[in-house]
């Protein structure tokens, strides 16, 4: 499905489009959920900025689970409702940690400390931070190569054109840069232990 469906789309179409990172699907989720989630956070002791943060984290958790197969499509579940729930959990977790400090009551019976899925999602964010930090330590040309290949998902031919290189050289360079990145990630990992 290359473009946004002209008529109303089904949940499975939205699921597939999010999996393929289609702009229209991301835009739909943002337009549909961001204002209502902000409203909910602001009524639960948060600011607009808090809402933006929790929305970003919750959406990222959901999309990572979707892409890695940890979230499987269910016809009966509305995707935006599921995403809202992911984001809500993130904010309730933030609230719970601040409530523990201030000894105030939570607005909801939900207890993030016993939500193992959420805890796994949060642990995963540490890995993401390490990769991000490692990427920042790469030299500019390598960082560019990694971003083109893994983040923008360009082909080696497209990268060769953009970087003014031969296609055969980009293959080797991609390998060299990925190896460097991997070493830096391992270094970050050992520093954090």
């Amino acid at each position, binding site marked *: 499905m290359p473009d946004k469906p002209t008529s109303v789309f089904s949940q499975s179409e939205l699921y597939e489009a999010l999996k393929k990172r289609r702009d229209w699907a*991301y835009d739909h989720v943002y337009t549909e959920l961001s204002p209502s989630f902000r409203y909910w956070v602001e009524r639960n002791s948060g600011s607009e900025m808090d809402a933006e943060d929790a929305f970003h984290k919750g959406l990222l958790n959901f999309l990572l689970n979707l892409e890695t197969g940890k979230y499987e499509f269910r016809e009966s579940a509305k995707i935006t409702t599921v995403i809202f729930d992911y984001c809500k959990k993130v904010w309730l977790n933030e609230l719970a940690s601040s409530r523990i400090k201030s000894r105030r009551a939570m607005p909801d019976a939900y207890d993030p400390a016993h939500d193992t899925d959420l805890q796994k999602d949060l642990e995963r964010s540490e890995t993401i931070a390490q990769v991000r*930090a490692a990427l920042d330590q790469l030299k500019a040309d390598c960082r560019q190569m990694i971003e083109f290949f*893994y983040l923008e998902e360009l082909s080696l031919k497209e990268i060769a054109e953009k970087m003014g290189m031969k296609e055969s050289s980009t293959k080797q360079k991609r390998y060299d840069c990925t190896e460097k990145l991997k070493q830096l990630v391992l270094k970050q990992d050992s520093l954090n232990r």
Partner: protein
Amino acid sequence: MNYEQFERVEAYLENRLSDAERLSFEREMSTNAELKSEVKAQQKMRLGLRALAIEKQISEARQRTQSSPKTTILKKLNSIQSWGLAASVAVMLGAGWLVWENNKTPGDAERRTMAEKEMTDVQYKSMPLDSLQNITKNAESAKARERAEWYVALAQMHEGQKDKAKALLTQISKTPQHTYQQNAEELLKKGF
């Protein structure tokens, strides 16, 4: 690990091996610790890169669908100041109050808001303080080190570590070539 081995691990992680190849690879992995740790390392790196790619898409969707968020507390402060101004015009007494309001030293809450406003980079913003501090010491690129320094100061300011934040911002503001020299100077004036 040479190129062929790297490609084989990559093919395994991308599910590009046939059933027979996969079985053989997994058998080898169960007895070869080096191969197993290589798979783990690549898996970890790929997860991080996947997350960064998704984050990029999310940020682009946000830009396409809405303007950047404004801080609620700041909006409240602006509105208080507007009311103060109106009162000062109506009653001379109000002018004195406004002077006091503008001259008083900002508190932790205001500094937190100011720090939040400066944190425009989602990637750096969500990075743990430890990782940021690692980058300030270990990054090869000066630009990455400076950016991390700036975000360490913002994080300290955000968390109410006033003295640490002030010391780091002063250090940045006194480094003429620092990318965030001017930003640090302005933040010191506004927030301390």
